[in-house]
């Protein structure tokens, strides 16, 4: 497969691995956080850890959209579908995130709620157009990558005068989460970040500059292919060894300093910052999520159906919160792989293949028994 195989090439991987090994100072440990679930998945799926020296440790970050959704947000969606009789549309992985009362959107669907999996906001919009008698709510989740398509859908709905379409807006912001991790005084020690791939195509590399300037943490933006990740690790090691803290861009084939200005304008026109938003693992983070502007209030399901948000504590045995902050590894959770499995996830990190627990369970768990 042209343009993809090149970034999964075994011979090149060997060469980069040799360079990483040469660059890594054996007298120290390098703690690198890959922010995105896409990176976590690539590392696990291709066995990248086997090619790295043991003193280069990858710490999985919170950049998995379904992982960071707190229980209360899923409860809200389930309430909409069950009590308000709406057709709730959302992306696949969201369907399996555990909610209160042993429910998930999938289980709510099985018990009769109208929950539908869609591949894009356009599918939800189309369904609303074709079923004018149904109230259709799109559960809009994700980081900056999925926000512009939601903005497009809202503008289309407005232009068409579509009255039976609205969104439950759970869009969140990457830099705010990185800031929350670095600002936590008891937080995990991090020497550098493998920066987001797809998110950065939208927001550009500029928003990461404060992490280099103010926190003195190197950031290397990397694509989601295994060689991208390895090259970014090499670039981070060089920065750390040189005592530099800069924002570098490995993913130059898609990311610029300013990003996609048109998408940014669109998002700014439709959305505004929430004062604060509760994240799973990170707690309440100020200015870390978006809501619809007043102009588009008619499309805001929270207002339309007057459903408030209530925080719900996580399962006590579940370590998702610590895992999302990078403080624990999946295998350090007592219920990992026993009570909590991809078939019966207790915490959200076991749901999506981008979640740290699911990725380790599905691809890497032979390492503990070897």
């Amino acid at each position, binding site marked *: *497969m042209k343009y*993809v195989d090149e970034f*999964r*090439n*075994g011979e090149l*991987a*060997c060469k980069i*691995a040799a360079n990483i090994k040469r660059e890594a100072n054996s007298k120290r440990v390098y703690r690198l956080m890959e922010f995105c679930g896409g990176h976590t998945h690539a590392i*696990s*799926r*291709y*066995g*990248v*850890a*086997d*090619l790295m020296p043991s003193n280069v440790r990858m710490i999985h970050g919170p950049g998995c959209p379904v992982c960071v959704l707190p229980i209360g947000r899923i409860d809200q969606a389930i309430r909409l579908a069950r009590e308000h009789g709406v057709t709730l549309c959302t992306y696949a992985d969201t369907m*399996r995130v555990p909610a209160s009362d042993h429910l998930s959107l999938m289980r709510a669907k099985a018990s009769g709620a109208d929950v539908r999996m*869609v*591949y894009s906001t356009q*599918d939800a919009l189309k369904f609303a157009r074709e079923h004018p008698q149904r109230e259709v709510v799109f559960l809009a989740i994700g980081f900056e990558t999925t926000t512009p398509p939601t903005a497009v859908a809202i503008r289309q709905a407005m232009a068409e005068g579509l009255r039976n379409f609205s969104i439950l807006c759970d869009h969140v912001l990457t830099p705010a989460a990185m800031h929350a991790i670095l600002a936590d005084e008891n937080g995990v020690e991090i020497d550098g970040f493998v920066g987001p791939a797809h998110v950065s195509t939208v927001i550009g590399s500029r928003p990461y500059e404060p992490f280099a300037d103010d926190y003195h943490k190197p950031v290397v933006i990397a694509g989601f292919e*295994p*060689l991208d990740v390895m090259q970014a690790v090499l670039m981070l090691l060089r920065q750390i060894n040189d005592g530099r803290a800069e924002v570098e861009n490995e993913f130059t084939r898609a990311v610029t300093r300013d990003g996609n200005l048109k998408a940014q304008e669109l998002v700014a026109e439709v959305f505004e910052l929430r004062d604060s938003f509760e994240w799973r693992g990170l707690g309440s983070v100020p200015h870390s999520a978006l809501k619809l502007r007043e102009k588009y209030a008619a499309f805001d399901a929270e207002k339309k159906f007057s459903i408030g948000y209530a925080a719900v504590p996580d399962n006590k045995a579940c370590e998702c919160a610590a895992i999302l902050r990078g403080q624990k590894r999946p295998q350090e959770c007592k219920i990992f792989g026993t009570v909590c*499995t*991809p*078939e019966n996830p207790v915490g959200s990190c076991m749901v999506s293949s981008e979640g740290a627990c*699911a990725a380790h*369970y*599905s*691809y*890497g*768990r*032979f390492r503990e*028994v070897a």
Partner: protein
Amino acid sequence: MSTVKPGYIRPLDLKHGRVELSHGSGGRAMAQLISELFAATFDNEYLAQGNDGAILPAAHGRLVMATDAHVVSPLFFAGGDIGCLSVHGTINDVAVMGATPLYLSASFILEEGFPLADLKRIVESMAHAAREAGVPVVTGDTKVVQPGKGDGVFISTTGVGVLRDGVDLSGDRAQAGDCIVLSGSIGDHGMAIMSQREGLEFSASITSDTAALHGLIAAMLDSGAQLRVLRDPTRGGLATTLNEIAKQSGAGMMLDEAAIKVNPPVEAACEFLGLDPLYVANEGKLIAICAPQDADRLLAVMRAHLLGREACVIGEVIADAHGFVQMKTKLGGRRVVDWLAGEQLPRIC
């Protein structure tokens, strides 16, 4: 006075007619559907007996029986349809046991309002597949459900075969050191279906691999190679089938990603939809586990057959109490190839 000849019954309108509830209610309408469509198309001496069951000649040897329900959506797809799929699927289940498939039964659940022209197409495709395989449909049943209670057509087929003497194939027989052989590329059926799904249609030259494998299997058994396990990796794909075998045998496996063939359009479609071809369904492929010294002989026989031209050793069985199926990635790392979690592609067969 009527000029119509006595005893004349207006034939079924197979061009514009639709399935009605009466077609499943046991009356004259059902008798007509059976005689004008099913019996006429499947056309064999057993069905012609016209009784509640078929009387079959005595078989010599142990019998193998397998059954399979088919609910695929869409009903017609590139490379096949629910009709031939329902024949191939059950023949393959009988054949991978090491048996020669002899007879099939078929039961249809039809939705009221389904076009008879489409039903005719499906039945003709089934009859063609059965004739090509030399395995007749000898008995059947038809039920009709109200609109919205079915999805056009559901077909259940059951197959009976007779086991060859001396053949002992079972999922629990894989041993450390055995070779794992795959008969060809993976993921073709699942992605052919996916590419034609409503809401997802993308133009791709992907054709389902649906095929009856009993001819290939007969050649493999004739080769004299020591076969321990045969299985067709359908739902859940290659990964799930290998995990089933590993679990049954209490052994592990080490696969070589580079040896597993994925056709470029399938690979691209999987990449596009975020699917792993290891978990995508096949309907005309098989996995054989054999003694290592016999692998070359087996491969030669398989490659000489149309359905095994791309046969390849993709890994080996290893001793592992945890029963992990692992894979050396093309990148040079290692990963687990786990059971399929949840549902990757619903309604594919």
